[in-house]
């Protein structure tokens, strides 16, 4: 705890909050408390300004233009790629492909890698903690190819049953797709170990990093992961942008995902040759402005320091967990000790929708429902949870406000 406290002093949350204009408003007559960060985080002023600057100053289509604005836009776009490459520590900048987001990144792998390398009777392993976006693309692929899907069991504390995972692996396993952290529960998965064990049977591993990017250190080389998918909007960047990291040899062996401009080398009606990576996978004009602005989100995270962010968020989570447990009938779903800052809970006899709406009436934004993880909710035999997910700009005072509001709801409902 001493270590955590000393780390936190490195940044002042009030100063951080000043960087986020959206936080300074009233909702339903009360100061906004934004606890829906696992759905999307808010954007610092630098990201908002970068978007404005791009559209006001140098909007142009990238890569083939020879005029000055095109040069400037291309440089800014490619700067984000370089920045992201260093952010995840990829060996080469070309291993970073821009997409619409994590969902598209996963679909890219399923469509391109999956269609070429996964065949009849092959097996794909996913986990019981996955978001629908890391389930459905594999189901579509498995159905098309006659492959099958195996699911790693989830234990009572919301962690994965590692022994079960090992028992599922065989020479038929071609791909393992798991998340870095669970969006519903916050559980951090032991992805380094998962990758190592999967590689022993020759399987490739895709990590759904949507919930990891803003909170956890990512070093794709150290992890030795084959694919890492992420979204900008979950880590203080714009919506509509994400990325796929893939190892060069895999990306080169994969066929294009979509056809169009950008991704070709030469086109004739007889034959088309394809561009090199990453452009082979970036057909059409990309979301240039948002990619450009994404760099400033990554700068924001690195300026604060991932370690500082993790320490502070852990302190927020621990505080919220302790306070939440004082509420009669409250049960935390997924109460493992190794989590990102997600408090997912139910209250006996009160529907999550009612709590969500009551909190909104107090200006507090949380998410309620199945969080796009229906199989996981079925596992816990619940319809859904109330999920409060914290970010670096949240405070203990805000948590107190949520707890007070919850106390009022419970008092009313149980009266």
């Amino acid at each position, binding site marked *: 705890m001493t270590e955590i406290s000393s780390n936190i002093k490195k940044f002042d949350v009030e100063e951080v909050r000043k960087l986020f204009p959206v936080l300074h408003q009233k909702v339903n007559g009360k100061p906004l408390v934004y606890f829906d960060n696992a759905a999307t985080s808010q954007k610092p002023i630098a990201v908002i300004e970068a978007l404005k600057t791009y559209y006001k100053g140098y909007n142009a289509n990238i890569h083939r233009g020879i005029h000055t604005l095109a040069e400037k836009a291309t440089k800014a776009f490619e700067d984000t790629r370089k920045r992201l490459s260093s952010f995840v520590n990829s060996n080469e900048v070309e291993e970073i492909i821009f997409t619409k987001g994590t969902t598209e990144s996963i679909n890219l792998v399923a469509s391109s890698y999956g269609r070429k390398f996964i065949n009849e009777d092959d097996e794909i392993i996913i986990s019981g903690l996955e978001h629908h976006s890391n389930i459905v693309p594999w189901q579509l692929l498995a159905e098309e190819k006659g492959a099958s899907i195996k699911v790693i069991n989830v234990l009572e504390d919301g962690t994965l049953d590692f022994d079960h995972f090992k028992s599922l692996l065989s020479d038929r396993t071609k791909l393992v797709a798991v998340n870095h952290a669970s969006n519903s529960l916050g559980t951090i998965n032991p992805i380094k170990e998962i990758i190592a064990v999967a590689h022993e049977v020759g399987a490739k591993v895709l990590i759904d990093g949507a919930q990891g990017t803003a909170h956890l250190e990512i070093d794709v080389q150290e992890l030795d992961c084959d694919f890492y998918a992420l979204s900008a909007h979950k880590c203080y960047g714009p919506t509509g942008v994400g990325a796929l990291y893939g190892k060069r040899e895999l990306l080169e062996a994969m066929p294009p995902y979509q056809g169009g401009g950008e991704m070709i080398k030469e086109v004739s009606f007889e034959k088309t040759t394809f561009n090199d990576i990453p452009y082979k996978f970036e057909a059409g004009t990309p979301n240039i402005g948002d990619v450009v602005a994404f760099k400033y989100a990554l700068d924001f995270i690195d300026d604060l320091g991932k370690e500082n962010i993790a320490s502070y968020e852990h302190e927020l989570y621990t505080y919220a967990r302790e306070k939440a447990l004082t509420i009669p009938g409250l049960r935390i779903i997924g109460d493992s000790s190794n989590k990102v800052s997600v408090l997912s809970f139910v209250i006996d006899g009160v529907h999550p929708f*009612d709590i969500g709406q009551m909190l909104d*009436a107090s200006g507090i934004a949380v998410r309620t429902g199945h969080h796009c993880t229906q199989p996981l909710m079925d596992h816990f035999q619940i319809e859904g949870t109330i999920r409060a997910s914290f970010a670096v700009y949240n405070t203990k005072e805000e948590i107190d406000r949520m707890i007070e509001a919850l106390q*009022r709801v419970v008092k009313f409902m149980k009266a």
Partner: protein
Amino acid sequence: MMSIVERQEEIIEEFAILDGDMEMTNFYVMELGQKLPEMSEASKIDDNIVKGCQSKVWLTAELQGSTIVYHADSNTAITKGLVSLLVRIFSGQLADEIVTAEVFFPEKIGMERFIGTQRSNGFGAMIKQMKLYALALKSKIEA
């Protein structure tokens, strides 16, 4: 017996007292839901679920003499309160009046602002279902 219009005006007056305070409004709506007569468990079947609602809403209607009586329940307290408002305005009315009624109170009490667009759509689905029941029972009377 108050008319559908009078019952709506009564609801508008009650909500005016809450003065737009969202938390108080929620509590009030839930309180109204608690007062809704219990629906029999046997009626809570999939066939009676109103399609298009985010929460589960069960709705049935029966003829009592020449008027229609509605029964409803929901798995969420706020939605139960909302459907109770509709039961209040429509229950005990003649089929013809229900079918042709204009439901104006949601807008006057700022319901969309308070329950959001998606739930407002669900609320619209409840009204439509109640009118359909009235229409069906009306043809039963006429037959």
